[in-house]
């Protein structure tokens, strides 16, 4: 076998023991890596119905057949576990040097089970695994944790994935950070790590990666590197994802003040264009990425002078317009605090925006906030609330539960503006003015997500009326989801996608050149469908019901009040129609269940066995 090691390291924190398991080629080629292989291993290793924050819920880190090679943007890893936020599959991706370290240490996957009796960190030194006391690391952010571990090991090659104080306190949307500023951000994987009392996983990986056809791979990759400097990636290279701000604002799709509006009067001042002109300090890249989309901004003056922070569109929207904030330094400060506490910026922004609306409607008062005026646009309140969530302090403790649980507890009609799908706070695309994306958010297998169900691309394509729901969107959403699942399993960054002319042909070739495993374009296409059926099967096992595929009441009751899509709203009938259409396109039953024949058709006999056994 090439590139893959065929090895999975299983670490049991309860007994502080480790073992190696073989990953046969048939399993690797069926689920490829990343999210696919991760979900497959989770299904096998977890107890049905396990509480997400219990020792029975494993957390799986997965590499891929392309990681560690020169394949552009392939230095990524997936974290897969049962989400404490949704109670369903929680899969999150991160990238860069820790991903390389995992692969170079010789593992295709790392599974953490059980729960330590006191705080520990792991140091995986190629073949040797050390369990180390971690009490002295508690309270540290990811960068500080990484620094401390590097100092202790005396080697800069040691790469660290860790949780921050938010993960230690089980904030339900805590993330796992690596290499200072990369995160497996969504679905609360960091809380699962925290529940196991595992502060950090340090890895020193020094092994070489051999591929099946080195010359062939180098030729294909050199072409992709060249294409990655063309218009195919221009948006990511020039302004980075903050370029979205003005585009979505114009389309009335920029969620503002907790989705009360869909355009923001302060959009110009926080736009990618403005950031580039006034704040840009440096553009950097993840490991093995020829694009380089990471825009690092520096605050020059004011109370946050000297602050350096990376900002993506999603963080920018969630801590900016969603909370009515137009101060760039405050957004950067809030983002820095999210990184310090190790909490997902989208969910953090979503929770604070929900609380701001509760405050403005009188459901939360200054008594609840200890005097803090939690109004939209109050940027000092935004920064303070991030701190309180990270510390689970006062009202921050309620918000640390996510909008679904917080609104169920606070009541008073606040469910109406708890903007989530299956408990996962929605990202920065308004579903009322992007109706295919509305479907994607509603049926999303990890909850409302633009990465797993990137159907905004359908809405933004020529010839599609994004304000209209019509038959056929179900199939389009399915195709977008399957394509995303292939990228997330290979693993390739989505930003490289336009560099391929015939994606399935070229990507299957890359896979074969690296691994030596035969993979036809049709095989690879089927991997996407297989992975999404696998995730669905996991969700069904964990109690998913038809009613979970839905959107919050605001989307049906409150039309967009202004802008290009003024008056746009979603009707229950049109969402129901699109969902039926989607289930049909997937070959699922009218209730959204998988008929037994479907798993057979997708050659998932191993999964049928696991589900029956």
């Amino acid at each position: 076998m090439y590139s893959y090691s065929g090895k999975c390291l299983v670490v049991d924190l309860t007994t502080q023991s480790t073992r190696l398991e073989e990953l046969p080629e048939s399993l690797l080629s069926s689920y490829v890596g990343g999210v696919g292989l991760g979900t497959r291993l989770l299904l096998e290793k977890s107890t049905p119905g396990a509480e997400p924050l219990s020792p029975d819920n494993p957390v799986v880190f997965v590499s891929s057949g392309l990681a560690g090679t020169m394949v552009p943007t392939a230095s990524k890893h997936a974290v897969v576990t049962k989400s404490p936020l949704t109670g369903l599959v929680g899969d999150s991706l991160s990238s860069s040097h820790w991903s390389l370290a995992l692969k170079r240490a010789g593992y295709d996957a790392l599974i953490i089970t059980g729960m330590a009796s006191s705080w520990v960190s792991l140091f995986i030194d190629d073949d040797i695994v050390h369990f180390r006391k971690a009490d002295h690391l508690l309270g540290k952010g990811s960068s500080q944790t990484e620094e401390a571990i590097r100092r202790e090991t005396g080697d800069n090659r040691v790469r660290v994935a860790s949780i921050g104080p938010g993960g230690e306190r089980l904030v339900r949307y805590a993330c796992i950070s690596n290499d200072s500023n990369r995160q497996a951000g969504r679905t609360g994987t960091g809380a699962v790590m925290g529940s196991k009392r595992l502060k950090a996983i340090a890895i020193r990986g020094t092994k070489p990666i051999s591929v099946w056809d080195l010359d062939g791979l180098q030729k294909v990759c050199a072409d992709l590197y060249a294409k990655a400097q063309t218009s195919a990636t221009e948006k990511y290279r020039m302004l980075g994802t903050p370029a979205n701000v003005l585009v979505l604002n114009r389309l009335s799709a920029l969620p503002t003040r907790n989705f009360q509006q869909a355009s923001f009067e302060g959009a110009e001042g926080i736009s990618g264009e403005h950031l580039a002109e006034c704040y840009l300090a440096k553009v950097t890249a993840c490991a093995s990425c020829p694009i380089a989309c990471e825009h690092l901004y520096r605050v020059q003056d004011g109370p946050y002078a000297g602050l350096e922070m990376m900002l993506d569109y999603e963080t920018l929207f969630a801590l900016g317009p969603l909370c009515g904030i137009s101060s760039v330094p405050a957004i950067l400060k809030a983002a820095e605090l999210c990184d310090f506490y190790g909490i997902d910026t989208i969910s953090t922004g979503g929770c604070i925006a929900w609380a701001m609306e509760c405050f403005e409607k009188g459901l939360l008062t200054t008594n609840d906030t200890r005097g803090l005026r939690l109004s939209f646009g109050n940027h000092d309140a935004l920064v303070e609330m991030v701190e309180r969530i990270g510390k689970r302090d006062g009202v921050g403790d309620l918000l640390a539960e996510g909008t679904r649980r917080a609104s169920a507890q606070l009541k008073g009609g606040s469910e109406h503006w708890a903007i989530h799908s299956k408990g996962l706070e929605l990202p920065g695309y308004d579903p009322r003015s992007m109706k295919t994306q509305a479907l994607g958010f509603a049926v999303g297998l990890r909850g409302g997500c633009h990465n797993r169900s990137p159907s905004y691309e359908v809405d933004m394509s020529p010839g599609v009326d994004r304000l209209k729901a019509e038959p056929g969107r179900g199939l389009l959403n399915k195709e977008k989801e399957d394509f995303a699942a292939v990228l997330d399993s290979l693993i390739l960054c989505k930003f490289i996608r336009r560099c391929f002319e015939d994606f399935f042909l070229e990507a299957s070739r890359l896979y074969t050149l690296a691994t030596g495993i035969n993979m036809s374009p049709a095989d690879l296409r089927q991997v996407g469908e297989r992975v999404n059926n696998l995730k669905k099967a996991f969700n069904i096992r964990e109690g998913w019901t038809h009613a979970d595929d839905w959107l919050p009441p605001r989307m049906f009751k409150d039309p967009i009040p202004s802008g290009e899509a003024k008056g746009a709203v979603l009707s229950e009938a049109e969402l129901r129609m699109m969902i039926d259409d989607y289930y049909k396109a997937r070959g699922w039953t009218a209730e959204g269940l998988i008929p037994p024949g479907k798993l057979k058709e997708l050659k998932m006999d191993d999964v049928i066995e696991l589900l029956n056994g």
Partner: protein
Amino acid sequence: MDSDMERRYIHCDADKCTGCRICELVCSASKEGRFHQELSRIRVAQPTPTIVTSIACRFCENAPCIAGCPKDALSMSGETNTLKLDKARCTGCGWCIEACDFGAIMLDRSTKSVVMCDLCLSLPEPRCVEICPKKALSLSTSEAVAQKARDRVATTSKKCIV
């Protein structure tokens, strides 16, 4: 031997470098036949998120690695102005690694000898220079690098005057 060829080395423009380490991957692929960053002859340093560059052997005029080698295994080829290693003499003791201010020498534990940049002299241009997606790397000379710096100062000071 007289030195005909001007001393050249791989220069990295730190403003353009993004820290992607593709240079490390292709260097190791070219020299080792597999992806093995530990043995890449060019290495990226990124002490902070905004400070990043890559570094390879600079073929110093008074090379401390040559002076430091207790086995006289290292020498400078006058013909190409690159370091030559007599593998039979090298014991992998690592004195040259300690002597090098740039961290440009690596120990290959499998062969128990050291490796460093050789400018890919057998190829039309060094592999890292050819592949760097941001064109941050160039085969340069001290004079060319200095000239660039002078040009930059001139441009900046002109801006200041205006």
